């Protein structure tokens, strides 16, 4: 099942090759360009095209970022998951180097791009994608030194994400616990999907090679330690760790132990599929008076405790694409008509728990439509919000121990926040 990429292409929005790196000499740029331009011409909208396509014995895998496509080509049965993920990592690395990855920045940095492609992949096998470490030995013009560099130890070390000899005056760690609530409510008002995806986002400013240990109120762990934990412990459905966490150790005794990378990274993500009550509930009644006028009555209700407050609440209400002359009234916040989105945006800066607000809107519908016309695109109501100092899961960081051989004291800062993820309520 060995399989590797033949070449990696960076293409512009029309599918023309900007830069490419040939790894095996069995797929040409002309061939790839021909295939890909045909593909996007045919579909117009490349979104509809599945990201793995076989053409003439060559398999192409691609992703899009801004106005650039990244694509690998292979003649073998290569690992598609790994290649597509690799392309996403290439984006991350380029973003680290050039701030943003787009056609312009590729042209401006093609020398480094070639160097990176040479280092990140060899003979079509993904090799190394840690941007921080790469930038220690592949530098852009401004930072380039004439002295020859050596590969950082980290490239081949077991700890491939952190170099030795990092120094900070003040050793600090910031830990953000961010939970996104995903919810899908169908047109009958039933919650058909709800889950919470959490992430522990870390920013570390630590000297040396610190050993960290993180303690959570994880039920499995607490029970294993024989601690009674009344209502405080939580069950996490699926946990995913950054590669710095020792997985075998976690499997053994549920200890989260790691040497962190320098700077920001996601230490872990987890998922909870327990049904949660929608934090903000939106109901919309749409009435069509005759054929040319419609009225909308929207109720938004916060269903969390009064001491919490949701901020930056934004409710996107779909309206027909020909709506004009909006007449909007709200009991709180402000509403604007965004014709480019065919939607009404209702913004509420601060929405405390247990409150209910209303919006009334009237539109004229000038178009004359055929009775039997195909149905219009039915977009759902979408809600965005943030609730600081609150997590749905009740996850708590019990401790974050940092031990380094120099024996410094490090300060951990922990923040909690809940926000809306894919929060969709289908219209009735």
């Amino acid at each position, binding site marked *: 099942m060995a399989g590797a990429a033949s070449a990696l292409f960076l293409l512009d929005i029309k599918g023309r090759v900007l830069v490419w790196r040939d790894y095996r000499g069995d797929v040409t740029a002309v061939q790839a360009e021909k295939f890909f331009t045909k593909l996007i011409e045919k579909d117009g909208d490349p979104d509809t095209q599945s990201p*793995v396509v076989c053409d003439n014995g060559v398999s192409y895998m691609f992703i899009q970022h801004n106005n650039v496509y990244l694509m690998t080509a292979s003649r073998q049965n290569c690992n598609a998951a*790994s290649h597509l*993920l690799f392309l996403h990592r290439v984006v991350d690395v380029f973003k680290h180097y050039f701030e943003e990855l787009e056609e312009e920045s590729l042209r401006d940095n093609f020398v480094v791009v070639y160097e990176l492609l040479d280092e990140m992949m060899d003979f079509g096998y993904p090799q190394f994608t840690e941007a921080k470490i790469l930038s220690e030995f592949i530098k852009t013009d401004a930072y380039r030194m004439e002295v020859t560099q050596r590969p950082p130890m980290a490239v081949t070390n077991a700890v491939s994400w952190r170099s030795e000899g990092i120094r900070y005056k003040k050793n600090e760690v910031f830990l953000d616990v961010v939970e996104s609530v995903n919810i899908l409510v169908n047109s009958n008002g039933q919650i058909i999907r709800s889950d919470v995806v959490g992430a522990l986002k870390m920013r570390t400013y630590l000297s040396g090679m610190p050993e960290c240990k993180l303690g959570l109120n994880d039920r499995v762990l607490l029970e294993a330690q024989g601690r009674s934990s009344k209502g405080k412990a939580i069950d996490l459905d699926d946990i995913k760790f950054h590669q710095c966490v020792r997985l075998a150790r976690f499997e053994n005794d549920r200890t989260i132990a790691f040497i962190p990378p320098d700077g920001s990274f996601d230490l872990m993500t987890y998922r909870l599929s327990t049904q949660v009550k929608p934090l903000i509930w939106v109901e919309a009644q749409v009435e069509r008076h005759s054929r040319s006028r419609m009225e909308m009555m929207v109720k938004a209700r916060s269903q969390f405790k009064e001491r919490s407050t949701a901020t930056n609440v934004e409710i996107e209400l779909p309206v027909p694409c020909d709506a004009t002359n909006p007449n909007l009234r709200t009991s709180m916040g402000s509403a604007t008509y965004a014709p480019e989105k065919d939607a009404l945006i209702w913004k509420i800066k601060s929405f405390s728990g247990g409150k209910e607000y209303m919006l009334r809107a009237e539109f004229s519908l000038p178009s004359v439509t055929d009775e039997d016309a195909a149905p219009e695109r039915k977009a759902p109501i979408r809600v965005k919000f943030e609730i600081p100092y609150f997590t749905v899961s009740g996850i708590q960081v019990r401790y974050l121990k940092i031990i380094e051989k120099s024996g410094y004291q490090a300060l951990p800062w922990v923040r909690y926040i809940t926000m809306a993820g894919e929060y969709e309520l289908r219209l009735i």
Partner: protein
Amino acid sequence: MSGHDSKYFSTTKKGEIPELKDELNSQYKDKRKDAVKKVIAAMTVGKDVSSLFTDVVNCMQTENLELKKLVYLYLINYAKSQPDLAILAVNTFVKDSQDPNPLIRALAVRTMGCIRVDKITEYLCDPLQKCLKDDDPYVRKTASICVAKLYDINAELVEDRGFLDTLKDLISDNNPMVVANAVAALAEIQENSTRPIFEITSNTLAKLLTALNECTEWGQVFILDALSKYKAADAREAENIVERVTPRLQHANCAVVLSAVKMILLQMELITSTDVVRNLCKKMAPPLVTLLSAEPEIQYVALRNINLIVQRRPTILAHEIKVFFCKYNDPIYVKMEKLEIMIKLASDRNIDQVLLEFKEYATEVDVDFVRKAVRAIGRCAIKLERAAERCISVLLELIKIKVNYVVQEAIIVIKDIFRRYPNTYESIIATLCESLDTLDEPEAKASMIWIIGEYAERIDNADELLESFLESFPEEPASVQLQLLTATVKLFLKKPTEGPQQMIQVVLNNATVETDNPDLRDRAYIYWRLLSTDPEAAKDVVLAEKPVISDDSNQIDSTLLDELLANIATLSSVYHKPPEAFVSRVKTAIQRPDDEEYPDGSETGYSETSSHAAESSGPAPTSSGTSPYAPTKQPGQAAGVAAPAAQMPDLLGDLIGLDNSLVPVDQPATPTGPPLPVLLPASSGEGLQISAQLTRRDGQIFYSMLFENNTQMALDGFMIQFNKNTFGLAAAGPLQVPQIQPGTSARTLLPMVLSQNVSPGPPSSVLQVAVKNNQQRVWYFNDKVSLLALLSEDGRMERADFLEKWKSLPDSNEVTKDLPGVVVNSVEATLDRLAASNMFFIAKRRHANQEVLYLSAKTSWGIPLLIELTAIVGIPGIKCAIKIPNLELAPLFFEATEAVLKG
């Protein structure tokens, strides 16, 4: 940190090349560097700058790493077009490979490997040898991959210079990155070689599992993928491996997770403890679900794989159907795959919610997605008998919305529902007829016409409805014409009145004289003759009972599924095709025994993958081979020709061809079956490998054999001898095997007979075989006789006979066995499978949620077997009981049944 390299692109003066030449030869370092950058910029935009080869190579000897990299890059691109000049670079390469800086050593050996010029390759060997043993792991990891590069260019050189052994040593390297790259290189070399080069022993296994904990995420993928080839010796070892791999499910890298899932699934096949298996299924579900939060492209790969996984292990995600509900912003390719999985996971428990979703999707804007959603409703109706009515009412609601393509799609699936549940839902026909005028797609039209013909006696104005189509007969596409022909004949047979009589004349005239489509003409003439000679016979043929269609949601054949599951995360699992169907560069020497199983796969483009085939609902049993134009989906045709054919094989046998007419169309015409088991491995046969198995074809027993010659000489004069055995099996003729050249193979079918020459003593399934040839000594090996090959075609029993036999045999002759690993997903499919193996269905009854099936069979020497199977659909585990005069046959029988049901 943004650069300003774009300025290098902007030299468009006329004398560009000479100008660059001057600059490249400048005495100033910076100017030379800028010039090389301009050359690379020109190369990037596709200009031919190969004429500057010598000048660029002259810049190669530099202390400046950036400049060196650019020159190397230039060399990779143009060395092939200037092979003679490329030799100029060799000295610098060799020098660089000894540089004190490991970055430069690695760079040199990495680049040399990319230059596919023979002359350079010769000089690569010495530096590579050194670099493989370099002190610095960065150099060693680069050199490991370079061995694979060299093997790709010149395999012999790699073997002669002993690089393979050095590479194998690197598996024990103390650096995990080096280990991972060595594994990747070895796996690739193995893939392209016919000799065993990289065989994972339990010793390597241990080393690799340890390295797994330490290497980079990409390295973990290499190792897991390579290890998935490892076959554990027993259940215990499998459990140990799984235990070491499961922590990987927690990795943030989706590719690591998928490769870990692949390994666990493969090892699970060996694990016998149901508790362990259940536990593993439980452990795998959350990570699989989490894959759906990844980037859409990764989700797509994950979904294609989950599609395969749920076919093998439906329980893993049985309770997770909600995570496959489509989100508004999902790209269409993700939505399509989610839909496919929703159908697979739909059950009586969740069908209401699923239908609500499908209904929602059917009102979206993307036409393809909407159609697929409508089709999904139909497929659920066919799959879930108890939900069929609810599915139909949703379809009717959708028809009422009157969106043209929704109506047409709904009619197509309703036709399939009618075929699945005949004479159950005709009350809705009136509603369907209302939409008659809006139909403009051939498939929808054909479906509607089929419905009218099939239920002509219940539709008062069936003749008027059909007549309205007849006017445009000559303009209709062939599929509609065929349907019209059959439907009119049906109408006439059901209502032989004046109107239909006139219609039939018009149609027959149109379909014989006026057409140049041979399919249509042939069918029309057959009907014509039938009608004119014997209308009663015509009734028997045209109105014969049709075979019932079944759920096709687990459509992938079991052996293919095995192969695809072994390829999880790879392209093969995304395409749902075996690797050899799309990989062009494969080893050439050994022809894989199952190559011929996928004759179309390799020719047609990927776009017609099996998943697309799956979109076509209810597979109509198609009469194979009657015509090259035979459309694949034609209920009417199937109804008219194939069904009676099954009952009259003698009469129509020559028309239908030799194969069993009930074989689904996607199976090959000549049954090759799964790969044969190896009985004499090459290692014990001094290079000769023999695989063989008893099979049964057309009522005769054959010994299907495959000889693979891995020796250095040609082998000929093959002979075979069977020892006396319980069954009296012996060869019916001499073994006919041509001379086999080294590196090639030969297949043969040896006809067998059952003689009276039976070995005395207790019965045994062992078949002792001796094979000799002119070049080697005599080889002895043992085969195990499968009862499957010995069940005769005439084992069908009348119900009364069965009951009587059952009663006449004492209870002591009844043996029961549980087959825990077997799942019955659909009773029909299971019965079909059993029937194909000559175990015939007699009756079934339902007991609580259990299905109890009664079947009969007969051995070739006349011993009847009475079979009772008890199973719960969809739940693994099946109880198998038989009554039989000779109890010794029971264990053999259980083995055979298990083999059939596991596929």
